[in-house]
């Protein structure tokens, strides 16, 4: 797996700037990647809450979102808004199929098998993507003009606002879903105690299916909004998943709010580390954070020790 290229242009631009504006620039690009990590972390959290499975194919949903969007809007020339809806629908369906065909039949299998089946899913998705799109990275035009803006000495692509705006909308939507709708509340109930949820008449199996679909949808959106900035290729998934997972554990696994805050935190940390320390080790930063959290305080920054006793670390 080759290291993905991302925000290289930001670093090149920044050579001419003062330290303050450089840091502002890094903060902005950190917010940008951070929103992607937050969305991936949220995807992990949703599936984990419903099933206590960590879905190693989470990064593949992001990759598929990006590549399907490229196929629809660049090759088939479908208008952007329609392409966005179709892409999210397609990846959601894939997530649902994945749950029905692979996770559901193995629901009573050993823990080791359950871990490996999500791994198998991720390889399978990657294999399909490599077969359909090849190994080359694909570009997606930005959603609006590519004329850069200047803000406090930092240079910003308009896509930056799209990423932040859409991430904000998704987070708002997910919050509304889990707190204000009946299905969302039922899913929350499953995450607290699935036996009790079943007793009050909630169809737990359906909720598991929903959690995979929803998590795939959130992943797809992350892929769509980030592709205009970083390009997308078939093997981008694992690293995205690892960093998203780093955010999910840092925020305290199972906590949606924690995952989001930690996602932005890790994005900013990574961007600052890449700009000020070493760009070569950029990808190691999130992984180191993850290992340290797992070793020292697996309940995460915002998780309580009491709550984590109940989880299977």
């Amino acid at each position, binding site marked *: *797996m*080759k*290291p993905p290229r991302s925000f290289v242009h930001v670093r090149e631009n920044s050579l001419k700037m003062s330290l303050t504006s450089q840091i502002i620039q890094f903060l902005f690009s950190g917010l940008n990647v951070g929103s992607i990590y937050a969305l991936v972390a949220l995807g992990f959290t949703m599936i984990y809450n419903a099933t*206590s*499975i*960590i879905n*190693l194919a989470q990064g593949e949903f992001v990759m598929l979102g990006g590549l399907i969007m490229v196929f629809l809007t660049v090759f088939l020339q479908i208008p952007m808004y329609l392409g966005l809806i179709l892409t999210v629908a397609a990846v959601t369906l894939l997530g649902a199929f994945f749950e029905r065909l*692979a996770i559901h*039949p*193995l629901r009573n*299998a050993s*823990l*080791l*098998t*359950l*871990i*490996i*089946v999500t*791994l*198998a*899913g*991720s*390889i*399978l*998705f*990657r*294999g*399909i993507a*490599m*077969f359909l799109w*090849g190994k080359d990275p694909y570009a997606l035009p930005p959603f609006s003009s590519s004329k850069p803006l200047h803000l406090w000495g930092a240079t910003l692509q308009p896509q930056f606002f799209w990423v932040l705006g859409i991430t904000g909308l998704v987070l708002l939507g997910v919050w509304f879903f889990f707190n204000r709708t009946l299905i969302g509340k039922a899913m929350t109930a499953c995450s607290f105690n699935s036996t009790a949820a079943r007793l009050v008449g909630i169809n737990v199996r359906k909720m598991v299916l929903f959690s995979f679909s929803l998590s795939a949808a959130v992943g797809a959106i992350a892929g769509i909004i980030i592709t205009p900035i970083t390009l997308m290729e078939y093997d981008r998934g*694992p*690293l995205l998943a*690892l960093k998203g*997972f*780093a955010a999910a*554990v840092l925020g305290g696994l199972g906590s949606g709010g924690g995952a989001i805050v930690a996602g932005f935190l890790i994005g900013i940390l990574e961007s600052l580390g890449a700009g000020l320390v*070493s760009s*070569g*080790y950029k*990808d*190691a930063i999130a*992984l*180191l954070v*993850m*290992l340290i959290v*797992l*070793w020292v305080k*697996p309940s995460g920054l915002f998780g309580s020790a009491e709550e984590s006793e109940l989880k*299977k*670390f």
Partner: protein
Amino acid sequence: MKRKDSYALLVMAVLIAIFPWIVAGNEYFISIVVFLGINSIITMGLCLLMGYAGQISLGHAAFYGIGAYSSGILTTHYSFSPVMAFFLGIFFSALVAYLVGKPTLRLKGHYMAVATLGFGEIFFIAFNELTPWTGGPSGLSGIPALRFFGKTLEETAYLYLVWGFVILLLIFSLNMVNSRVGRALRAVHGSELAANAMGVDAARYKVQVFVLSAVYASMAGSLYAHFVTFISPSSFGLMPSIMFLMMVVVGGAGTIWGALLGTAVFTSLPEYLRGLEDYEVLAYGGILMFILLFMPQGILQRMQNLLNQMKQRVEKSP
């Protein structure tokens, strides 16, 4: 070691001994079997860790890489003897495995999987970035081939060397799993709580078997480095880690023989898929998914079950 194991071992040793004659000294086939031996060393260790102790590792290519780069760097940059570099590689791998394993093995299931995944990826990044020593992404070349008594080891001799290792480690592993240690590992797999209650120090056994499997991988790495004489980070990344795990799972993690069978399947698979490289990842994912869904015990167990069924049917029919 059980009697059945000894017979199988004997058959395997004889097959390897006459293999160069079977293929009439064809270097291509011999080199595939050398790689099969190298991979087998890793998957044997991984099988002890996964199949017996029930712990997962998605970062074992890192130890493979530590072995390979220790041999490569020490012999090319610092003119160590290959034997010395081999043992230093083992030492480094064991040390890293101990330091990383101790906190990581406290985690369970999914967390351990992701932690080892992250750890493997960190080493992959290090192999890429430590350019002065590792040569970075473009690799490290000019690793000396092995020489014994002034003669360079050729393909056939290397085959015997690698498989000598495989057979020795196999005897050691088979004896271990049928000893007190093996029973302790299986107890840990069944239930750590119960194992602890019976006086088995689960945490210690887990770290020990993790270190042992890292040592196996390191040996394989050193043998690989001297065989191909050129190494680059791509052989020690995420995909190789997953491949080793796949070999164990597909063949059947429950026994070492299963892991060896899986290794044979996956080492030879790319050779059948020559020219179809675009399908490779798809094929791997498809096979793994199929095995998980329909033969969760692996191919070997499934074959044995089928054999038993056939035997019963033959006995029943008049």
